[in-house]
């Protein structure tokens, strides 16, 4: 019970902090002081108080987009274990539901973008759906490898199976798998090198351009949903990358939270040292990630 409460609190409260850490890391690389760590929380709080502007072209789909996406992501948050603690909901095949809930969110985000009749948002929607259908098989290859290693088909036992002895035995495969997952993490959350959330040129953006017309509380939902998605895919990554268990439940929570913050720093570093890829290079990198995870499967089969 106490674990479930911890899980819910952490998953609801922590995601915007990752954005703050990423921002601070990028500022440090650029030699700036940067916004405070808690800046995303202030932003979201301010957005909740604002009114909204609705485009004349839109229908109820436009408001349903952020709402359904956030609802699907919130349910997905109950399926991922955080660190060594089991997820509140776990059943055979939950990893497929996990992947498909993100797809449901994507369906509604992109239809909401098309609802505005803006050519830029249509462009962003076309890119989003095309890139993610290349990212999805990578995730499934990674899940097949994990299923083979752990012998189970549920996220909690699958991820908790990855311990130090397993790393000793199949380290090479797990490193390839992590590399593939990291690429998926960056692509699905529209981070550099796939997409630049800070650019001011609508033509080059993917996720940000789809949400150009959202404002006020709805935009807050979009931002929070995006942060939560980053957090969940990040948790998947950190669970495999940090195979340590201290034995003490509270220490495990701290280890996990520290791992998530480290991941945020890593994303910040990647965003600082890399430039955005040209759009036609993006599929190549995604296919490379797919092949990496396919190799990780080959290595565990042998």
């Amino acid at each position, binding site marked *: 019970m106490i674990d479930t409460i911890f899980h819910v609190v952490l998953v609801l409260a922590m995601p915007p902090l990752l954005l703050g850490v990423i921002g601070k890391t990028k500022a440090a690389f650029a030699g700036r002081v940067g916004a405070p760590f808690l800046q995303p929380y202030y932003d979201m709080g301010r957005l*909740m108080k*604002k*009114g*909204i*502007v*609705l*485009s*004349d*072209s*839109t*229908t109820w*789909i436009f*408001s*349903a987009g952020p*709402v*359904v996406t*956030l*609802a*699907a992501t919130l*349910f997905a948050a109950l399926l991922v274990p955080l660190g060594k603690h089991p997820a509140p*909901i776990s*059943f*055979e*095949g939950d990893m*497929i*539901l996990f992947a498909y809930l993100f*797809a*449901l969110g994507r*369906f509604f985000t*992109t*239809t909401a973008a*098309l*609802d505005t*009749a*803006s*050519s830029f948002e*249509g*462009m962003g*929607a*076309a890119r989003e*759906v*095309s890139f*993610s*259908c*290349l990212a*999805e*098989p*990578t995730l*499934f*290859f990674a*899940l*097949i*490898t994990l299923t*083979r290693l752990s012998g189970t088909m549920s996220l909690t036992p699958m991820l908790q199976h990855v311990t130090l002895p397993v790393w000793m035995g199949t380290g090479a495969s797990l490193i390839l798998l992590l590399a593939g997952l990291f690429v998926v993490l960056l692509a699905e959350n529209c981070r550099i090198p796939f997409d630049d959330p800070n650019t001011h040129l609508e033509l080059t953006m993917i996720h940000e351009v789809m949400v*150009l*017309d959202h404002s*006020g509380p*709805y935009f807050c*939902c979009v931002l929070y949903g995006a942060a939560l998605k980053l957090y969940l895919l990040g948790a998947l990554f950190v669970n495999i990358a940090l195979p340590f268990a201290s034995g003490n439940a509270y220490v495990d929570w701290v280890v996990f939270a520290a791992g998530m913050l480290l991941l945020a720093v890593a994303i910040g570093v990647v965003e600082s040292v890399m430039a955005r890829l040209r759009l036609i290079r993006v599929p190549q990198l995604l296919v490379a990630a797919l092949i990496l995870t396919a190799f990780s499967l080959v290595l565990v*089969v042998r």
Partner: protein
Amino acid sequence: MLFFDMMRDPASLVLCAIALAGCSGLPGLVLRDGTLGQRLASVAALASSLLALPSLLYLLLGGGEASFLLNWNLPFGPCQVALDPLSLFFLIPIFLVFPAGSLYALGYWPAASHSSQRSVTFFYGLLACAMALVVVSRNGALFMMAWETMALSGYFLLVAEHREGEVRGAGTVYLVASHLGGAALLVLFASLFMITGGFGFPAAGSLAVGAGLAATLFWLALAGFGSKAGLMPLHLWLPSAHANAPSHVSALLSGVMLKIGVYGILRVISFFPERPLWWGGVLTGAGLASAVLGICVASAQKDIKRLLAYSSIENLGIICAGIGMFLLGQGSGNDRLAFLGLAGALFHVLNHVVFKPLLFFCAGSVMHAAGTRDLDRMGGLARRLPFTAFFTLCGAVAICGLPPFNGFASEMLLYLGFFGEARAGQPFVALGAPVLALVGGVAVISFVKLYGIAFLGEPRTAEAAGAHEAAGTMLAPIALLACLALTGGLFPQLFLALVQPAIRGLAPDLAPAAVLPIAPVWFAVAGGSVICMAAILFLFLRAKTSGGAASAPTWGCGYLCPSPRIQYTGSSFGAFFSSLSGPLIRTRISVGQVAGLTPAAVRLSYHPEETLLHRVVLPVLSVAGTVCAFVRRLQHGEVQIYILYIFVTLMLLLLWVH
């Protein structure tokens, strides 16, 4: 007394319903008032469904079977007609979609504005009746007669608007493909006659023949039934046929007739006691290839019904892959894989029967309203057709296999089957999971495009701007199917209850393994929570912003006079993915030359191509036509000479036999 006894027997009720469906269009042929005839036909269709569906469910759930013997003195022997679980299962789609389509036709193809209404109504009933006869017949000759009636009534329905050249072309391709498939089946049943000595179907698992002969029969069945089911590369007839038929006909063709091909494959497989492992490999491979290619080509289409037709190829591919998994599982003694494959396949059959007619009906309403099939000329219909828009959204989410709708539940079973194989020594079968994930991803592209471009944004033409909501008789069947799609997604156990008897019928030894690895309650929990959370958030945000919502034009990035024509079109939405998938999807883009300092208006047009049909099959056929031109002299249209041909052929056959 006899009559009442018969009425108490559900099996005879089903046969009565089949006959009633076949006769539903007859009054319309003789009545002078076309509208009355059409209404009578719809009433007959609803009545046949009310007779059949409860009896079917009673027999299927109660484990009842029935068989009737027609002892006539025709040369091919007594005709057996039987209702076993497999037949009962495949009768459900017919009696679900047929009445829905008849009801829909009242508003969509009214007698007042369509002169072809009489023939369409008549052949609609005949098609349903012929399909039902195909499913219940247990005699090769009767089967072929029903099959031929089905193919021909499909043809007459398809060419309802035969004054358009495109429709006639589609009809000819359909007729040729259908008869090539029929020829394979003729050889199949002739071979069965040689083996068993009669036209009656061999009992399940009783056909013990050598490996070579079994392989021949398998390939014949795959060619004949696979072409009806639209498996690639035998799908050539399917896209243009489904695009050019009236929408309620497309719904019946796509929702039900393709499944008859699946039924045929399953029926032939059930004859054999031993099913080699490679059959499963062939079916899984062909199914997954059809699924990927079908949906990739669908994503490039700009014709709303052609997009749906290609997505049928994808869905039938998924079903076929499930059957392949069943055979692989049986061949390797892996009951778990066999059960999940077959359950997933049959469950997906039911799901496709629900959401594909739903989408074809919606496409019909859209065409009715906007006057075109071209997605690039629609837009903004969600404001004008709010109910159709809502139900299309349900159908689109369901067909992408997304929770909380039914497509997710059946794909989940297939995923579980694939993932289970990851633990096997050689996890080749597990590679199906990423392929299915890719298919799901591309399906999202196709259906976001279909929904977003047709219904959202601003209308691109004046016709789209003046569109109106469909009539109540058109919306009612759509709403029913949408409810079924949601029910199947939240409570898959209801659909699985129908699937279980069919599995027991096909593979009695699977019973001990027939437990789902996932408790069905999780579908209700996941779907229900997502729906509830979304509803609460929606109401909360609506209340929070109720006072301060300002209205303004869409942000045009500083451009002040946007027009609907600058919106992203269906072609441009799909073009990005087609550019990635290269040779899989061929599109032809023709652009005029832009010349001079003040260029004149230039046209750009975008056409997705049917590579196989236009680059390979039609050129080969035209060469064959030139080479065999002399044979055409036999074909001159003089009936008395044709009768002479028949007589001479019979004489030669008699001489050959003696």
